[in-house]
């Protein structure tokens, strides 16, 4: 009964008052599609392309923790890698603190710390300290400054006691923290975190999120772009979330706003068992957009999912109409939105719009 197409997609939120750290304007990226033998033999030089980033624009303010949320293949990692200068965009521009990722790649690299999704991107046969020493050299750190910075970041990620241990003997969580330590070595202004909890078990992932919150909020205070397909992670950590699918940024907003906006007309009502006929009449009158019976049953009341037209105003009108129709109303509450619902609803809304077009 609840139509996804009627839920409005949130438009990009206005920038905060803080200056922009990351600015993307119309970024486009396509990758060639791998072909089977038959196709390759039939047309050896033909190439089919898959659009991975589709005119993506967004601005992220300094000090903001911005989450990129989307299913696998949404284009999160490609965007991160374009910002990290590892992938060249086909069109559009992206800047980090004003430096262009294509024409001023070296300056960009000086400003970013990139935490790779792959925990194998460290040297496993040497210690954490030696790994950091290697990277400190590549970042141009030398002598006492290098030693001091290595100790600082090891302290930050709580690996100071295990700094001499071979990385191969680390747990996944420790290796992730080492990757963060490595990214922090150069005191980056922008931290790119690509699925940092992908290989962690739920408990380690929760600990890691607490660690990230403390690290970013209290210690480094740098701008963070976090790519994840864990909705809980995005909800828990981020100031704003961008929902990405098939290369398009479908919605941007604060986690609470995003949920509220997408579910502003969705209510859960506990009504008398004879409410169905009354709800049908309210649909005909236009007070209710749609309804469905929910699974809940409490004494003489049953749970209904009801979609109204105008948020709380619509809910108030719903209550008035139901009471007027003689239906018992135990309670009406806004549907608490889960993070997974947000993605589903945004994607469904987008698909509906596409279908309409």
């Amino acid at each position, binding site marked *: 009964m609840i139509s996804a197409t009627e839920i409005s997609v949130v438009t990009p939120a206005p920038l905060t008052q803080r200056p922009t750290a990351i600015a993307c304007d119309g970024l486009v*990226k396509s*990758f*060639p599609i791998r072909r089977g033998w038959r196709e390759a033999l039939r047309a050896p030089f033909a190439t089919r392309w898959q659009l*991975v980033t589709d005119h993506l624009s967004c601005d992220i303010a300094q000090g903001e923790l911005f989450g990129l949320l989307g299913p696998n293949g949404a284009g999160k990692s*490609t965007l991160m*890698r374009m910002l*990290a*200068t*590892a*992938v*060249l965009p*086909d069109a559009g521009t992206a800047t980090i603190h004003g430096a262009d990722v294509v024409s001023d790649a*070296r300056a960009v*690299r*000086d400003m*970013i710390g*990139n935490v*790779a*999704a*792959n925990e*194998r*991107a*460290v*040297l496993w*046969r*040497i210690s954490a300290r*030696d*790994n950091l*020493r*290697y*990277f400190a*050299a*590549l*970042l*141009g750190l*030398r002598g006492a400054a290098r030693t001091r910075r290595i100790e600082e970041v090891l302290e930050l990620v709580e690996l100071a006691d295990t700094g001499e241990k*071979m990385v191969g003997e680390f747990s996944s969580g420790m290796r992730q923290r080492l990757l963060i330590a*490595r990214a922090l070595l*150069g005191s980056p202004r922008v931290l790119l975190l690509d699925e940092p909890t992908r290989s962690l078990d739920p408990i380690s992932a929760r600990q890691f999120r607490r660690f990230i919150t403390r690290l970013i909020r209290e210690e480094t205070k740098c701008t963070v772009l976090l790519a994840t397909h864990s909705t809980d992670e995005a909800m828990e950590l981020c100031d704003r979330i961008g929902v990405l699918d098939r290369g398009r940024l479908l919605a941007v907003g604060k986690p609470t706003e995003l949920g509220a906006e997408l579910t502003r007309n969705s209510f859960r009502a506990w009504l008398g068992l004879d409410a169905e006929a009354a709800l049908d009449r309210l649909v005909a009158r236009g007070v209710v957009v749609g309804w469905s019976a929910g699974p809940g049953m409490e004494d003489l009341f049953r749970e209904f999912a009801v979609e109204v037209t105008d948020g709380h105003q619509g809910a108030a009108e719903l209550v008035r109409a139901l009471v007027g129709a003689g239906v018992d109303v135990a309670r009406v509450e806004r549907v608490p939105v889960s993070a997974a619902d947000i993605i589903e609803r945004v994607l469904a809304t987008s698909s509906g719009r596409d279908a309409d077009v």
Partner: protein
Amino acid sequence: MYKVAEMMRASWRIARSYKMNLVFSILALFFTTIPFYLVAHAMQPMMGKVVANEGGDYFGFVLLGLIAISLLSTALTSVYQAVSGSISSGWLEAQLGTSTSMPVLLLGMSAYEFLWTLLRVTVLLLYGWTLGVHVHWSGIALGLPVLLLLCVAYYGLGLVLAAMYLAFRTIGPLQSVIVTGSVLLGGVYYPTTVIPSWIQSLSVVVPMTYGLRATRRLLLDGASWSAVQTDVGMIAAIAALMMMLGVAAFQLSFDHARRRGTLSLY
């Protein structure tokens, strides 16, 4: 140089963590040389005249061939192996995320292998000397730069292999073709003068031909600079050409990988 030194230090620490491998790679030199020593001595009556221009001692001749092959292998494969090994783990992309320039990264990733090979061939040369090879130590000052030029030439080809791997994720049979071609046509086990004339013409495009001949004449025959300057000139020209080819191929391939997003795909 500081960055390269730090990268070498890390490579050394990784290498020494494989203790047995480290020990065996040196010990193997002593055992693998013995068959060559015995066979070379058996063939000395026949080959002595053939290699007269390059010292006249066939075991010394082969020993320098083995040294050149070791250097060739390292020069050819060190970059390619460093690149291929670090792509799948994301290590290459992580390093490229720093502002360190590409030439420094490539040099740093292969420098340890070069030093280690240099140490091994030095041990091999000293071992050969103890087995009776007459080395003209005065020729070292010129012989080493010639071997270095030989390395540069094959390093250029190594960059081409790395470029191929970046672009296609395979180098096909190219490495085998280069190594086998250099061994067969470059005069590693026999002088190029003994191979059939129609194949001999191919040896003029093999860097090993010039580098190895010049080194042998300097170290085994005590030849003067003027006697080897043609060969040295040729190897220098080939080295410059190969490096230009390698750098251009790698740059093209690297740009292609950045456009295709394949720097960390495997």
